[in-house]
Each structure stands twice: as C-alpha cells, then as structure tokens.
C-alpha cells in the first residue's frame, strides 16, 4: 500500500528559486549573490523582479562570502549562492571567520549537493558539506526534501537572524510535502508512524525512506519515518521519543557517514539513550560520474539500502 503519493516531480533547486521569487516581492531586505551560476540556482525570477538586489560575483566564491558578510553588516539579508562544493568546502575559512565567528546574518544557499548532480563527477559532488557546516559554532544546517519544503525553507530562513547553510540539489524528485507549508527550523516532521524501527532521513533520502517503509510493511515490519530537514539544531526531542518507542534506528543521508546527520544522532543517543543504529550514507569514499539513480544504487543510498539496514538494526535490537 502506498503510504504517500505525489503528482509531480521537481528539483529542489527550483523550490529555492520559487522561494527567492517570493522573497523578491515580499522581503525588501533580501539580496542575492551568485558566482556565475544563475541558471543552475534558478535565480532568474529574483533578478527580474529586483535587479538592484542581485550581485553577480563572477567565479569568485571567496569574495562572494566576504561581500555577503559586508551586506549583512549594512542591514541586508544576503543569500550567497553557488554549487555546494564551491559554497562550503572551497570557502570554509571565509565562512568560518567572516560569517560564523563574526555572527553574520548570511544564508549560504547551495545547489548540486551530493551524488545526485550525476555526470559531473566527484569534483562537484560534495559529500562533506553538512559536516563542515555543522561543526561551525552557531551555524544552522538545513537540507529540505522536496520542492515545496525547499521553497518554504528558503522563505523561512530570511526570518531567522543568524548564519544558515541551506542545501539542495539538482535531480527531480517527488513533490509530496504540502504546498505553502510552514517551515519550522529545527522541527522534525513525522511522516509515518511505526513501532519496529525509526528511520531518520534528510534531503533526497526522505522519499527513499518512505518507499523503504512501504517495502518493510510488506515484510510485516512497522517503520517510523521522520524527516530531519534541520541537521543543526537537531530535534533531539523527536528523535528521543521515536527511538524510545522503536528501540532501533536507521539514519539516511546523501552525505558521508562521517560528519553527517547520523553522526549527530549517534552523538546524542550515546549520551542519552544508547540504541542500535545503522547508517545509510557514503562510507568514506568520493563519488564518480554516472546517472543519479545508478550512483545512488551503487553507493547504497536508496530505499533498498534503507530496508536492508532497517532489518539489520532490528536484528541487533533482538540480540541486545
């Protein structure tokens, strides 16, 4: 039985573009910067509506981060945009000093995160960005799951005073969360109630977790699926309550296992509620060129992988 349905598939980056279009009309303090990737970031509507609030930086990401910090000092809410690889790893020290340590109200909004950018290969497929950003004191890290949620998150972070890393991607994925939803930073979203295993997923893996729950249901396993769109601050209350009920968990993310969502959950549970946990993520390797779905299968980041890890987690629970 299908637990969730959808009518269309869209890319999360287009959700970002739609959010920016909304902000161009409704928040005069929002400004956007882009390092020569306007089309990839879907910024056309923002630029058309408010050209004076758009800053083309050329292929110069380090400067872009500094500019954003400066614009925030002058009272604006800058969205610094590019591919996730160039907007985080390439400019880590600029973000660390000029944004995070300086406490600036800068939104680093990046597309093409993870393996699913596909054919461009590992040079562009950053799988370490969540870890890099969540280690910075005071940085909020958000990885929404579909078009509607990305749009809502894009709009919501403008209302939050402080540095934010907003991560999204290139592939079209099912649009299954409500249109015009209210996005609450740091608030996990319960998608499916279950009793045997908790699946905590973020970004593109949320839909895969839903499919996995359907597959598990056919095997007579009741999986709880929770969308952790905000990796930091982590909704530890929701995680605690779910795990206390199910007794085991799987974390799922399009990211290195080192430093990702699963890491954050494990750290919390180790201190508060030690629980068998399995990790769906990239295991200490780089990506490669290929079609997104093929890559996700090869690197074990799909519904099938979540099913297998769920069964493993449940088995460990019984041993314990």
């Amino acid at each position, binding site marked *: 039985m299908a637990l969730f349905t959808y009518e269309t598939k869209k890319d999360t980056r287009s959700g970002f573009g739609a959010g920016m279009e909304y902000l161009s009309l409704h928040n005069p303090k929002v*400004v956007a910067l882009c390092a020569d990737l306007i089309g990839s970031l879907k910024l056309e509507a923002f630029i058309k509506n408010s050209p*004076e*609030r758009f*800053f083309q*930086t*050329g292929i*110069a990401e*380090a*400067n*872009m*981060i*500094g*500019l*954003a*910090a*400066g*614009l*925030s*000092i*002058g*009272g*604006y809410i*800058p969205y610094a945009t590019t591919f996730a690889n160039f907007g985080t790893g390439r400019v880590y*020290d*600029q973000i*660390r*000093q*000029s944004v995070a*340590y*300086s*406490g*600036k109200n800068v939104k680093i909004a990046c597309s093409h995160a993870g393996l699913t950018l596909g054919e461009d290969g590992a040079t562009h497929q950053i799988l370490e960005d969540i870890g890099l950003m969540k280690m910075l004191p005071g940085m909020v890290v958000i990885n929404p799951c579909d078009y509607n949620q990305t749009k809502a998150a894009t709009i919501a972070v403008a209302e939050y005073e402080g540095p934010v890393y907003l991560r999204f991607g290139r592939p079209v994925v099912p649009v299954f969360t409500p249109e015009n939803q209210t996005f609450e930073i740091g608030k996990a979203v319960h998608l499916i109630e279950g009793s045997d295993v908790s699946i905590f997923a973020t970004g593109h893996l949320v839909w895969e977790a839903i499919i996995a729950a359907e597959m598990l249901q056919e095997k007579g396993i009741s999986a709880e699926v929770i969308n952790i769109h905000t990796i930091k601050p982590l909704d530890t209350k929701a995680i605690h309550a779910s795990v206390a009920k199910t007794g085991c968990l799987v974390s799922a993310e399009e990211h290195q296992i080192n430093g990702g969502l699963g890491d954050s959950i494990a750290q919390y549970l180790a201190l508060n509620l030690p629980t068998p946990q399995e990790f769906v993520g990239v295991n200490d390797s780089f990506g490669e060129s290929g079609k997104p779905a093929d890559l996700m299968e090869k690197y074990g980041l799909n519904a099938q992988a979540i099913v297998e890890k769920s069964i493993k987690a449940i088995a460990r629970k019984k041993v314990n």
Partner: protein
Amino acid sequence: MQTIELQKVASQVRRDILRQVHGCQSGHPGGSLGCTDLLVELYFNSMTLKTDASGKVVFQMDGLNEDVFFLSNGHISPLLYSVLARRGYFPVAELASFRKLNTRLQGHPTPHEHLEGIRIASGSLGQGLSVAIGVAQAKKLNGDSSIVYCLMGDGEQNEGQVWEAAMYAPHHQVNNLIAFIDENGQQIDGPTEKVMNNLDLEAKYKAFGWQVLRVDGNDMASITAIIAEAKQLLNNNKPVMVIMKTEMGAGVDFMMHSHKWHGVAPNDEQLATALGQLEETLGDY
C-alpha cells in the same frame, strides 16, 4: 583636528600599542606602529562618525550614515583597539586586558565579544576588502552617501581573495570605497620582494580598474591631504586604492628598519627605552 594635535594622539596611541603588547608579552607591534598615523587621522579627522548630542561616538553595527573602517590585516589589533578606545568607543582602561583570558580585546579583532567599534573578525588574511565592498554596496542600496575605508597589508596581497575583490569593485562601480595598502615591504619570512614579490602594485590595481594614489604613511599632513584627494576621485565612479609607504615600528628607533618586531613583544627594558621616545600626551591607561 590640526596636524599637530593628530600627532599628539598618535604619540599616545603608540605608547598604548607598546604597553598592550608588553602587558601580555604577545602581539604585533611593528605593523601597528607603522599604521598608527593613518588610523589616528581617519578616526580623529577624516571620518565622519556617529555621535550623540554631546559629541560622544555611538557604535551601531550597521554603520548607517557614518563612515566606517575595516581592518583586514587584523594582527595590528593593538593599534585599532587603542584608536577605538581613545576615540571613546570603550574605556581606555580596557586596553590592559589585551590578549588576556576573558577579554573583549582578542588577539585579532572580532565582533564575537561585542567590542564597540568592531564589525567583522579579521586575522585570517585577505578577507577584509571583500567585506568592505559588501558594506559599500549596502550603503548604496540604503541611499547612504558616506564612505567605507579599508586597510590591508602588503604581505596580504599574496592572498588570492584580494584579487577577486580587486576585480569586483571597479566592475560594480563601487565609488564609495577608499582602500589602503600598508606597504612596509616586510612580511613574516622576510622582505616582501624576497618572500613573494608584489612587483608594481600601482600598475596592478590600475589594470584592475582602480584609481591609485601614493602617500608617505608616516607623515600626518600628507595623509590628510591624500584622503581629501581620494574623496574627490570617487566622483569618477571608481574605487580608490592608496598605496601607503610606511616604516614598521615607526616612532621607536630600535624597532624600525627591520621586520624583527613584526610579532615580538618588548621586555621591560625595551619598553622603557621605547616609551622614552614617545610623549605621553593623553595619559597612559
């Protein structure tokens, strides 16, 4: 303020620099002493700062409708702290806490400790010009006609981000920005011409579309004059870069003509000798 009065302030600021660095046996006196005249000139003469009815400076993070200054080479923090304190942003007595545990006067400047007058962290080099440009563009969006100033080191010109920013500002006609390079010819590993030769900075910035001026950075009257000239040049719709020749350690004979005092604190005897060369004009903290 008259040149002679500015020079008196500069003498006190140089004393403050030496005493701060001596007090914690850590910090960077050489470049701080070299750039003292510029910062004193800016904060006590050329910059229009926000003040209350009584004339006391008021710090607002957004710097709206006032001139603002960004220090990119953050290691000369004892200079910035002294100038900010002497100008009235925070108590002069706080200079005694420089680089000590729980201080707001961190080794390199930061707004993290909410020190009045500091708007951005700097110290990791090459980032300040980008920030200054961002603030300048925010001023234009706000319809604010005041000016953004920025100081970088000459060793700092090694950083790639400086040239990203250098390319950006003229392209975007950032005509409310006056930047300075402290050309003291020294960096940590030796003379800049040996470590990484900047060659002709004037030609480089001109090729990037800047208007470039030169000044003797240890001559107060010349600094005042060059800032007035730079302001006029902004009417050409381009930013201005002032290459400022300075002497590291300026004002203390045994600290000059060497990069030895880049990041070394004087001992008790050296401090006494140095202070003997600098008149106490405003009272030590």
